[in-house]
Protein backbone atom coordinates (compact mmCIF):
# COMPACT_ATOMS: atom_id res chain seq x y z
CA UNK A 1 0.00 0.00 0.00
CA UNK A 2 1.39 3.34 -0.96
CA UNK A 3 2.28 5.90 1.62
CA UNK A 4 -0.51 8.31 0.71
CA UNK A 5 -3.14 5.57 0.71
CA UNK A 6 -2.10 4.45 4.19
CA UNK A 7 -2.25 8.05 5.36
CA UNK A 8 -5.72 8.38 3.84
CA UNK A 9 -6.92 5.19 5.53
CA UNK A 10 -5.65 6.40 8.91
CA UNK A 11 -7.24 9.86 8.62
CA UNK A 12 -10.56 8.52 7.32
CA UNK A 13 -10.55 5.94 10.11
CA UNK A 14 -10.05 8.73 12.64
CA UNK A 15 -12.83 10.79 10.99
CA UNK A 16 -15.20 7.82 11.31
CA UNK A 17 -14.29 7.10 14.93
CA UNK A 18 -14.46 10.73 16.03
CA UNK A 19 -17.77 11.22 14.21
CA UNK A 20 -19.12 8.17 16.05
CA UNK A 21 -17.97 9.43 19.44
CA UNK A 22 -19.20 12.98 18.84
CA UNK A 23 -22.83 11.97 18.28
CA UNK A 24 -22.51 9.30 20.93
CA UNK A 25 -21.75 12.08 23.41
CA UNK A 26 -24.71 14.10 22.23
CA UNK A 27 -27.01 11.17 23.00
CA UNK A 28 -25.28 10.46 26.31
CA UNK A 29 -25.56 14.11 27.32
CA UNK A 30 -29.35 13.79 27.25
CA UNK A 31 -29.06 11.23 30.04
CA UNK A 32 -27.17 13.68 32.21
CA UNK A 33 -29.57 16.53 31.49
CA UNK A 34 -32.96 14.78 31.90
CA UNK A 35 -32.85 14.22 35.65
CA UNK A 36 -32.34 17.91 36.27
CA UNK A 37 -34.03 19.73 33.43
CA UNK A 38 -36.71 17.30 32.30
CA UNK A 39 -37.01 15.33 29.12
CA UNK A 40 -38.76 17.55 26.66
CA UNK A 41 -38.15 19.13 23.30
CA UNK A 42 -36.56 22.12 25.07
CA UNK A 43 -33.79 19.90 26.41
CA UNK A 44 -33.15 18.51 22.93
CA UNK A 45 -33.19 21.96 21.30
CA UNK A 46 -30.57 23.21 23.78
CA UNK A 47 -28.47 20.11 23.31
CA UNK A 48 -28.54 20.20 19.51
CA UNK A 49 -27.82 23.93 19.45
CA UNK A 50 -24.84 23.43 21.76
CA UNK A 51 -23.41 20.67 19.57
CA UNK A 52 -23.81 22.80 16.44
CA UNK A 53 -22.09 25.76 18.11
CA UNK A 54 -19.26 23.42 19.06
CA UNK A 55 -18.97 22.16 15.48
CA UNK A 56 -18.86 25.72 14.15
CA UNK A 57 -16.24 26.82 16.67
CA UNK A 58 -14.19 23.68 16.01
CA UNK A 59 -14.25 24.11 12.25
CA UNK A 60 -13.17 27.76 12.51
CA UNK A 61 -10.47 27.02 15.04
CA UNK A 62 -9.23 23.92 13.21
CA UNK A 63 -9.05 25.72 9.89
CA UNK A 64 -7.05 28.56 11.38
CA UNK A 65 -4.70 26.25 13.25
CA UNK A 66 -3.96 23.82 10.43
CA UNK A 67 -3.12 26.56 7.93
CA UNK A 68 -0.66 28.10 10.39
CA UNK A 69 0.95 24.94 11.75
CA UNK A 70 0.20 21.92 9.53
CA UNK A 71 0.76 20.03 12.78
CA UNK A 72 -1.08 16.73 13.36
CA UNK A 73 0.59 16.67 16.79
CA UNK A 74 -1.26 19.86 17.81
CA UNK A 75 -4.59 18.36 16.74
CA UNK A 76 -3.67 15.22 18.71
CA UNK A 77 -3.03 17.22 21.87
CA UNK A 78 -6.39 18.97 21.50
CA UNK A 79 -8.10 15.58 21.19
CA UNK A 80 -6.35 14.35 24.33
CA UNK A 81 -7.62 17.42 26.21
CA UNK A 82 -11.15 16.80 24.89
CA UNK A 83 -10.98 13.15 25.98
CA UNK A 84 -9.68 14.03 29.44
CA UNK A 85 -12.47 16.58 29.90
CA UNK A 86 -15.14 14.09 28.81
CA UNK A 87 -13.62 11.38 31.02
CA UNK A 88 -14.06 13.63 34.04
CA UNK A 89 -17.77 14.39 33.41
CA UNK A 90 -19.19 11.66 35.70
CA UNK A 91 -17.12 13.09 38.57
CA UNK A 92 -18.62 16.58 38.63
CA UNK A 93 -21.86 16.50 36.68
CA UNK A 94 -24.26 15.82 39.57
CA UNK A 95 -23.07 18.50 41.99
CA UNK A 96 -22.82 21.05 39.16
CA UNK A 97 -26.32 20.37 37.82
CA UNK A 98 -27.83 20.40 41.32
CA UNK A 99 -26.31 23.82 41.75
CA UNK A 100 -27.54 24.89 38.28
CA UNK A 101 -31.10 23.84 39.08
CA UNK A 102 -31.06 25.74 42.37
CA UNK A 103 -29.37 28.89 41.06
CA UNK A 104 -30.32 29.19 37.39
CA UNK A 105 -33.43 27.02 37.21
CA UNK A 106 -34.73 24.58 34.63
CA UNK A 107 -35.61 27.14 31.97
CA UNK A 108 -33.70 27.85 28.77
CA UNK A 109 -30.77 29.47 30.58
CA UNK A 110 -30.32 26.50 32.90
CA UNK A 111 -30.53 23.85 30.18
CA UNK A 112 -28.16 25.70 27.86
CA UNK A 113 -25.73 26.25 30.71
CA UNK A 114 -25.91 22.52 31.47
CA UNK A 115 -25.44 21.44 27.86
CA UNK A 116 -22.63 23.97 27.38
CA UNK A 117 -20.62 22.85 30.39
CA UNK A 118 -20.99 19.23 29.31
CA UNK A 119 -20.19 19.50 25.64
CA UNK A 120 -19.03 22.86 24.29
CA UNK A 121 -15.32 22.64 25.03
CA UNK A 122 -14.72 18.93 24.26
CA UNK A 123 -16.87 18.83 21.13
CA UNK A 124 -15.21 21.99 19.82
CA UNK A 125 -11.82 20.33 20.25
CA UNK A 126 -13.04 17.13 18.56
CA UNK A 127 -14.42 18.96 15.53
CA UNK A 128 -11.08 20.73 15.08
CA UNK A 129 -10.07 17.43 13.49
CA UNK A 130 -12.16 17.86 10.32
CA UNK A 131 -10.29 20.83 8.78
CA UNK A 132 -7.01 19.20 9.84
CA UNK A 133 -7.96 16.04 7.96
CA UNK A 134 -8.96 17.98 4.84
CA UNK A 135 -5.78 20.05 4.77
CA UNK A 136 -3.46 17.12 5.51
CA UNK A 137 -5.04 15.03 2.74
CA UNK A 138 -5.15 17.88 0.22
CA UNK A 139 -2.37 17.44 -2.28
CA UNK A 140 -3.98 18.95 -5.33
CA UNK A 141 -6.73 21.51 -5.82
CA UNK A 142 -8.10 19.32 -8.65
CA UNK A 143 -9.39 16.83 -6.10
CA UNK A 144 -10.33 19.44 -3.47
CA UNK A 145 -14.09 19.22 -3.89
CA UNK A 146 -14.21 15.44 -3.80
CA UNK A 147 -11.80 15.31 -0.88
CA UNK A 148 -13.91 17.65 1.26
CA UNK A 149 -16.94 15.59 0.29
CA UNK A 150 -15.24 12.35 1.35
CA UNK A 151 -14.07 13.71 4.69
CA UNK A 152 -17.51 15.07 5.56
CA UNK A 153 -19.20 11.96 4.20
CA UNK A 154 -17.09 9.55 6.24
CA UNK A 155 -17.39 11.69 9.35
CA UNK A 156 -21.18 11.80 8.91
CA UNK A 157 -21.34 8.02 8.51
CA UNK A 158 -19.61 7.95 11.90
CA UNK A 159 -22.23 10.38 13.25
CA UNK A 160 -25.08 8.18 12.06
CA UNK A 161 -23.56 4.99 13.46
CA UNK A 162 -22.71 6.77 16.72
CA UNK A 163 -26.27 7.99 17.15
CA UNK A 164 -27.96 4.66 16.46
CA UNK A 165 -25.51 2.18 17.99
CA UNK A 166 -25.05 4.26 21.14
CA UNK A 167 -28.77 4.53 21.80
CA UNK A 168 -30.03 1.15 20.63
CA UNK A 169 -27.16 -1.07 21.75
CA UNK A 170 -24.48 0.46 23.93
CA UNK A 171 -26.53 2.49 26.42
CA UNK A 172 -28.87 -0.41 27.31
CA UNK A 173 -25.81 -2.64 27.76
CA UNK A 174 -23.34 -0.49 29.66
CA UNK A 175 -25.05 2.54 31.15
CA UNK A 176 -24.14 6.17 30.61
CA UNK A 177 -21.20 6.72 32.95
CA UNK A 178 -19.16 3.74 31.83
CA UNK A 179 -19.87 4.55 28.21
CA UNK A 180 -18.83 8.18 28.68
CA UNK A 181 -15.48 7.01 30.01
CA UNK A 182 -14.99 4.44 27.23
CA UNK A 183 -15.77 6.99 24.51
CA UNK A 184 -13.48 9.49 26.21
CA UNK A 185 -10.75 6.84 26.23
CA UNK A 186 -11.25 6.23 22.50
CA UNK A 187 -10.82 9.97 21.82
CA UNK A 188 -7.64 10.05 23.88
CA UNK A 189 -6.36 7.10 21.81
CA UNK A 190 -7.22 8.95 18.58
CA UNK A 191 -5.25 11.93 19.87
CA UNK A 192 -2.31 9.74 20.79
CA UNK A 193 -2.35 8.17 17.32
CA UNK A 194 -2.06 11.64 15.78
CA UNK A 195 0.75 12.68 18.14
CA UNK A 196 2.73 9.50 17.53
CA UNK A 197 2.24 9.59 13.76
CA UNK A 198 3.00 13.28 13.39
CA UNK A 199 5.69 12.92 10.74
CA UNK A 200 3.78 10.28 8.83
CA UNK A 201 0.60 12.36 8.75
CA UNK A 202 2.50 15.44 7.58
CA UNK A 203 3.51 13.47 4.53
CA UNK A 204 6.95 12.38 5.68
CA UNK A 205 7.85 8.70 6.03
CA UNK A 206 6.81 7.08 9.29
Amino acid at each position, binding site marked *: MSHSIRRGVLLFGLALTLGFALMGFEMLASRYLYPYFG*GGITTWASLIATVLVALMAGYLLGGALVDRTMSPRLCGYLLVIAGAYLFSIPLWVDPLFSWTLQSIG*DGMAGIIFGATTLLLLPLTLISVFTPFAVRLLLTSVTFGGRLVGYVYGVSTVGNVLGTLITVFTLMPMFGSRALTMVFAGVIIICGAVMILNDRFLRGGTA
Partner: protein
Amino acid sequence: MAFAGLAVAALASPLLAQGGLLESRESLYNNIFIFGDRDSVTMTFGHNKRYFTESSMKLSDPGGLTVDYTRLMSVGIAYAPKLERVLEIGLGGGRTVSYLSAALPDTAILAVEIDKDVVELAKKYFKFTETARLRAVVSDGRAFLMRDRETWDVIMIDAYRGPFVPFHLLTKEFYTLVKSRLSPGGVVVQNIEPSTMLFDSASATLKSVFPSVDLYDGGGNVVAVGYDGPSLRQSDLAARAAKAQEQYKLRYDLRTMVASRRVLGRPTGKIMTDDFAPVETLRAIEQNNEKWKEQTEAPR
Protein backbone atom coordinates in the same frame (compact mmCIF):
# COMPACT_ATOMS: atom_id res chain seq x y z
CA MET B 1 -66.87 21.94 12.43
CA ALA B 2 -68.50 19.01 14.21
CA PHE B 3 -68.57 17.12 10.94
CA ALA B 4 -64.87 17.81 10.35
CA GLY B 5 -64.13 16.57 13.84
CA LEU B 6 -65.97 13.33 13.24
CA ALA B 7 -64.17 12.80 9.95
CA VAL B 8 -60.79 13.12 11.68
CA ALA B 9 -61.86 10.69 14.38
CA ALA B 10 -63.08 8.22 11.78
CA LEU B 11 -59.75 8.36 9.98
CA ALA B 12 -57.87 7.86 13.22
CA SER B 13 -57.40 4.51 14.89
CA PRO B 14 -60.66 2.83 15.95
CA LEU B 15 -58.89 2.03 19.21
CA LEU B 16 -59.19 5.63 20.17
CA ALA B 17 -61.84 6.99 22.44
CA GLN B 18 -65.49 7.27 21.52
CA GLY B 19 -66.93 10.34 19.94
CA GLY B 20 -65.66 13.15 17.80
CA LEU B 21 -62.52 15.18 18.08
CA LEU B 22 -63.26 18.26 20.12
CA GLU B 23 -59.81 19.77 20.11
CA SER B 24 -56.27 18.84 19.25
CA ARG B 25 -53.33 20.77 20.47
CA GLU B 26 -49.64 20.49 19.77
CA SER B 27 -47.91 21.41 23.00
CA LEU B 28 -44.26 21.58 23.92
CA TYR B 29 -44.38 17.95 25.12
CA ASN B 30 -47.33 16.22 23.52
CA ASN B 31 -49.84 16.06 20.73
CA ILE B 32 -52.98 16.24 22.81
CA PHE B 33 -56.36 15.11 21.48
CA ILE B 34 -59.65 15.67 23.24
CA PHE B 35 -62.47 13.42 22.11
CA GLY B 36 -66.02 13.64 23.30
CA ASP B 37 -69.62 12.70 22.76
CA ARG B 38 -72.81 13.53 24.62
CA ASP B 39 -71.72 11.87 27.83
CA SER B 40 -67.95 11.47 27.83
CA VAL B 41 -64.73 13.31 27.26
CA THR B 42 -61.33 11.70 26.79
CA MET B 43 -57.77 12.98 26.52
CA THR B 44 -55.19 11.01 24.50
CA PHE B 45 -51.62 11.72 23.46
CA GLY B 46 -51.61 10.33 19.94
CA HIS B 47 -52.99 7.90 17.42
CA ASN B 48 -50.85 4.87 18.24
CA LYS B 49 -52.70 2.32 20.34
CA ARG B 50 -49.71 2.15 22.67
CA TYR B 51 -50.16 5.80 23.44
CA PHE B 52 -52.62 5.22 26.16
CA THR B 53 -55.62 7.25 26.96
CA GLU B 54 -54.56 9.85 29.50
CA SER B 55 -57.83 10.66 31.14
CA SER B 56 -61.56 10.24 30.70
CA MET B 57 -64.70 11.48 32.38
CA LYS B 58 -68.44 10.89 32.16
CA LEU B 59 -70.19 14.25 31.89
CA SER B 60 -73.23 12.89 33.74
CA ASP B 61 -70.97 11.79 36.61
CA PRO B 62 -67.92 14.05 36.72
CA GLY B 63 -67.02 12.96 40.25
CA GLY B 64 -66.62 9.32 39.26
CA LEU B 65 -63.35 7.76 38.23
CA THR B 66 -63.92 5.85 35.00
CA VAL B 67 -60.55 4.14 34.80
CA ASP B 68 -60.07 1.30 37.32
CA TYR B 69 -56.52 2.04 38.34
CA THR B 70 -57.21 5.71 39.04
CA ARG B 71 -59.59 4.59 41.81
CA LEU B 72 -56.77 2.51 43.25
CA MET B 73 -54.47 5.54 43.22
CA SER B 74 -56.48 6.68 46.27
CA VAL B 75 -55.38 3.63 48.30
CA GLY B 76 -52.51 5.69 49.77
CA ILE B 77 -55.12 7.33 52.02
CA ALA B 78 -55.43 4.05 53.93
CA TYR B 79 -51.69 3.95 54.65
CA ALA B 80 -50.81 7.50 55.60
CA PRO B 81 -51.09 8.33 59.32
CA LYS B 82 -52.03 11.93 58.48
CA LEU B 83 -53.36 13.58 55.35
CA GLU B 84 -52.39 17.21 55.48
CA ARG B 85 -50.49 17.43 52.22
CA VAL B 86 -50.76 15.31 49.10
CA LEU B 87 -48.66 15.66 45.95
CA GLU B 88 -49.41 14.25 42.53
CA ILE B 89 -46.84 14.14 39.73
CA GLY B 90 -48.66 14.01 36.40
CA LEU B 91 -52.04 15.70 36.20
CA GLY B 92 -53.70 14.39 33.04
CA GLY B 93 -57.35 15.42 33.17
CA GLY B 94 -56.99 15.97 36.90
CA ARG B 95 -59.73 13.50 37.80
CA THR B 96 -57.82 11.75 40.58
CA VAL B 97 -56.82 14.93 42.40
CA SER B 98 -60.30 16.39 41.96
CA TYR B 99 -61.79 13.24 43.49
CA LEU B 100 -59.38 13.39 46.42
CA SER B 101 -59.89 17.09 46.92
CA ALA B 102 -63.67 16.61 47.10
CA ALA B 103 -63.32 13.66 49.49
CA LEU B 104 -60.68 15.05 51.84
CA PRO B 105 -61.89 18.43 53.11
CA ASP B 106 -58.80 19.28 55.17
CA THR B 107 -56.08 18.16 52.77
CA ALA B 108 -53.99 20.47 50.62
CA ILE B 109 -53.32 18.87 47.25
CA LEU B 110 -50.74 19.95 44.70
CA ALA B 111 -50.46 18.52 41.19
CA VAL B 112 -47.18 18.91 39.30
CA GLU B 113 -47.63 18.72 35.54
CA ILE B 114 -44.88 19.32 33.01
CA ASP B 115 -47.21 20.41 30.20
CA LYS B 116 -49.06 23.68 30.68
CA ASP B 117 -51.45 22.79 27.85
CA VAL B 118 -52.50 19.66 29.72
CA VAL B 119 -53.39 21.85 32.70
CA GLU B 120 -55.37 24.21 30.45
CA LEU B 121 -57.26 21.39 28.77
CA ALA B 122 -57.97 19.73 32.13
CA LYS B 123 -59.62 22.97 33.18
CA LYS B 124 -61.44 23.42 29.90
CA TYR B 125 -62.83 19.89 29.44
CA PHE B 126 -62.42 17.93 32.68
CA LYS B 127 -63.84 20.35 35.22
CA PHE B 128 -60.47 20.65 36.92
CA THR B 129 -60.70 23.77 39.09
CA GLU B 130 -57.93 25.20 41.21
CA THR B 131 -58.93 26.19 44.71
CA ALA B 132 -57.12 27.25 47.84
CA ARG B 133 -56.60 23.54 48.66
CA LEU B 134 -56.08 22.17 45.16
CA ARG B 135 -53.42 23.71 43.03
CA ALA B 136 -51.42 22.81 39.93
CA VAL B 137 -47.87 23.88 39.11
CA VAL B 138 -46.20 23.49 35.75
CA SER B 139 -42.84 21.77 36.18
CA ASP B 140 -40.95 18.58 35.56
CA GLY B 141 -41.75 16.34 38.53
CA ARG B 142 -38.18 15.62 39.49
CA ALA B 143 -36.99 19.20 39.07
CA PHE B 144 -39.90 20.28 41.29
CA LEU B 145 -39.01 17.83 44.05
CA MET B 146 -35.36 18.85 43.95
CA ARG B 147 -36.17 22.51 44.48
CA ASP B 148 -39.15 22.20 46.77
CA ARG B 149 -38.02 21.14 50.23
CA GLU B 150 -41.47 20.51 51.69
CA THR B 151 -42.57 17.05 52.74
CA TRP B 152 -45.78 15.25 51.78
CA ASP B 153 -47.96 12.61 53.39
CA VAL B 154 -48.76 10.93 50.08
CA ILE B 155 -46.90 11.34 46.80
CA MET B 156 -48.73 9.93 43.79
CA ILE B 157 -46.79 9.37 40.59
CA ASP B 158 -48.73 8.92 37.38
CA ALA B 159 -46.42 10.54 34.90
CA TYR B 160 -45.31 7.91 32.50
CA ARG B 161 -48.25 6.87 30.49
CA GLY B 162 -48.47 8.05 26.96
CA PRO B 163 -45.92 8.23 24.22
CA PHE B 164 -42.80 8.69 26.26
CA VAL B 165 -41.33 7.11 29.33
CA PRO B 166 -39.33 9.67 31.30
CA PHE B 167 -36.50 7.48 32.59
CA HIS B 168 -35.55 10.03 35.22
CA LEU B 169 -38.83 9.36 37.07
CA LEU B 170 -38.06 5.62 37.34
CA THR B 171 -34.59 5.46 38.84
CA LYS B 172 -33.19 4.70 42.26
CA GLU B 173 -31.96 8.29 42.58
CA PHE B 174 -35.47 9.58 41.84
CA TYR B 175 -37.14 7.33 44.39
CA THR B 176 -34.50 8.30 46.95
CA LEU B 177 -35.46 11.92 46.34
CA VAL B 178 -39.15 11.03 46.68
CA LYS B 179 -38.45 9.23 49.94
CA SER B 180 -36.66 12.28 51.32
CA ARG B 181 -39.79 14.36 50.61
CA LEU B 182 -42.16 12.06 52.50
CA SER B 183 -43.24 12.91 56.03
CA PRO B 184 -42.87 10.15 58.67
CA GLY B 185 -45.18 7.30 57.70
CA GLY B 186 -45.74 8.83 54.25
CA VAL B 187 -46.24 6.68 51.18
CA VAL B 188 -45.54 6.86 47.49
CA VAL B 189 -48.25 5.55 45.18
CA GLN B 190 -47.32 4.85 41.59
CA ASN B 191 -49.13 3.59 38.54
CA ILE B 192 -47.11 1.01 36.60
CA GLU B 193 -48.09 -0.65 33.35
CA PRO B 194 -47.41 -4.40 33.83
CA SER B 195 -47.30 -5.78 30.31
CA THR B 196 -43.61 -5.20 29.61
CA MET B 197 -40.24 -5.88 31.18
CA LEU B 198 -40.23 -2.28 32.37
CA PHE B 199 -42.65 -3.31 35.13
CA ASP B 200 -40.13 -5.74 36.63
CA SER B 201 -37.41 -3.11 36.71
CA ALA B 202 -39.65 -0.34 37.99
CA SER B 203 -40.99 -2.44 40.87
CA ALA B 204 -37.51 -3.74 41.73
CA THR B 205 -36.19 -0.17 41.76
CA LEU B 206 -39.01 0.97 44.02
CA LYS B 207 -38.26 -1.95 46.34
CA SER B 208 -34.56 -1.02 46.42
CA VAL B 209 -35.46 2.31 48.06
CA PHE B 210 -38.63 1.50 49.99
CA PRO B 211 -38.36 -1.54 52.30
CA SER B 212 -42.03 -2.31 51.78
CA VAL B 213 -43.84 -2.32 48.46
CA ASP B 214 -47.45 -3.42 48.00
CA LEU B 215 -49.07 -4.00 44.63
CA TYR B 216 -52.70 -3.69 43.57
CA ASP B 217 -54.18 -5.06 40.36
CA GLY B 218 -55.95 -2.15 38.72
CA GLY B 219 -57.39 -4.01 35.77
CA GLY B 220 -54.64 -3.54 33.20
CA ASN B 221 -52.47 -1.24 35.24
CA VAL B 222 -50.85 -2.02 38.55
CA VAL B 223 -50.72 0.45 41.41
CA ALA B 224 -47.65 0.17 43.63
CA VAL B 225 -47.44 1.59 47.15
CA GLY B 226 -44.00 2.07 48.68
CA TYR B 227 -43.23 3.00 52.28
CA ASP B 228 -40.48 2.92 54.86
CA GLY B 229 -40.30 0.33 57.61
CA PRO B 230 -41.51 -3.26 57.76
CA SER B 231 -44.54 -4.46 55.85
CA LEU B 232 -47.78 -3.49 57.58
CA ARG B 233 -49.80 -6.34 59.05
CA GLN B 234 -52.89 -6.88 56.96
CA SER B 235 -55.13 -6.53 60.02
CA ASP B 236 -53.54 -3.16 60.85
CA LEU B 237 -53.94 -1.89 57.32
CA ALA B 238 -57.53 -3.10 57.18
CA ALA B 239 -58.23 -1.26 60.43
CA ARG B 240 -56.69 1.93 59.06
CA ALA B 241 -58.67 1.56 55.84
CA ALA B 242 -61.89 1.08 57.83
CA LYS B 243 -61.15 4.14 59.93
CA ALA B 244 -60.40 6.33 56.91
CA GLN B 245 -63.45 4.99 55.10
CA GLU B 246 -65.59 5.80 58.13
CA GLN B 247 -64.13 9.29 58.35
CA TYR B 248 -64.22 10.33 54.69
CA LYS B 249 -67.10 8.22 53.32
CA LEU B 250 -65.18 7.59 50.14
CA ARG B 251 -67.08 6.59 47.04
CA TYR B 252 -64.50 3.93 46.19
CA ASP B 253 -64.22 1.86 49.32
CA LEU B 254 -60.72 1.64 50.79
CA ARG B 255 -61.61 -1.59 52.61
CA THR B 256 -62.25 -3.37 49.30
CA MET B 257 -59.03 -2.00 47.88
CA VAL B 258 -56.75 -3.11 50.70
CA ALA B 259 -58.38 -6.55 50.65
CA SER B 260 -56.84 -7.10 47.20
CA ARG B 261 -53.35 -6.20 48.41
CA ARG B 262 -50.33 -8.19 47.23
CA VAL B 263 -46.90 -7.75 48.82
CA LEU B 264 -43.87 -7.52 46.55
CA GLY B 265 -41.57 -10.19 47.91
CA ARG B 266 -39.23 -11.29 45.17
CA PRO B 267 -38.58 -8.55 42.64
CA THR B 268 -36.88 -10.06 39.60
CA GLY B 269 -36.12 -6.97 37.55
CA LYS B 270 -32.84 -5.14 37.28
CA ILE B 271 -32.64 -1.98 39.38
CA MET B 272 -32.57 1.19 37.30
CA THR B 273 -30.30 4.11 38.11
CA ASP B 274 -29.63 7.47 36.51
CA ASP B 275 -26.63 5.74 34.99
CA PHE B 276 -28.44 2.68 33.72
CA ALA B 277 -32.10 2.96 32.79
CA PRO B 278 -32.85 1.39 29.40
CA VAL B 279 -36.55 2.19 29.67
CA GLU B 280 -37.27 2.05 25.94
CA THR B 281 -35.55 -1.31 25.54
CA LEU B 282 -37.33 -2.78 28.56
CA ARG B 283 -40.68 -1.48 27.41
CA ALA B 284 -40.17 -3.08 24.02
CA ILE B 285 -40.08 -6.55 25.59
CA GLU B 286 -43.62 -7.63 26.21
CA GLN B 287 -44.53 -10.33 28.65
CA ASN B 288 -47.55 -12.04 30.05
CA ASN B 289 -49.84 -9.57 31.74
CA GLU B 290 -50.42 -11.65 34.84
CA LYS B 291 -46.84 -12.76 35.38
CA TRP B 292 -46.11 -9.98 37.85
CA LYS B 293 -48.13 -11.77 40.53
CA GLU B 294 -45.45 -14.45 40.73
CA GLN B 295 -43.18 -11.87 42.36
CA THR B 296 -45.68 -11.16 45.12
CA GLU B 297 -47.14 -12.94 48.11
CA ALA B 298 -50.29 -12.61 50.13
CA PRO B 299 -50.02 -10.09 52.98
CA ARG B 300 -49.75 -11.39 56.53
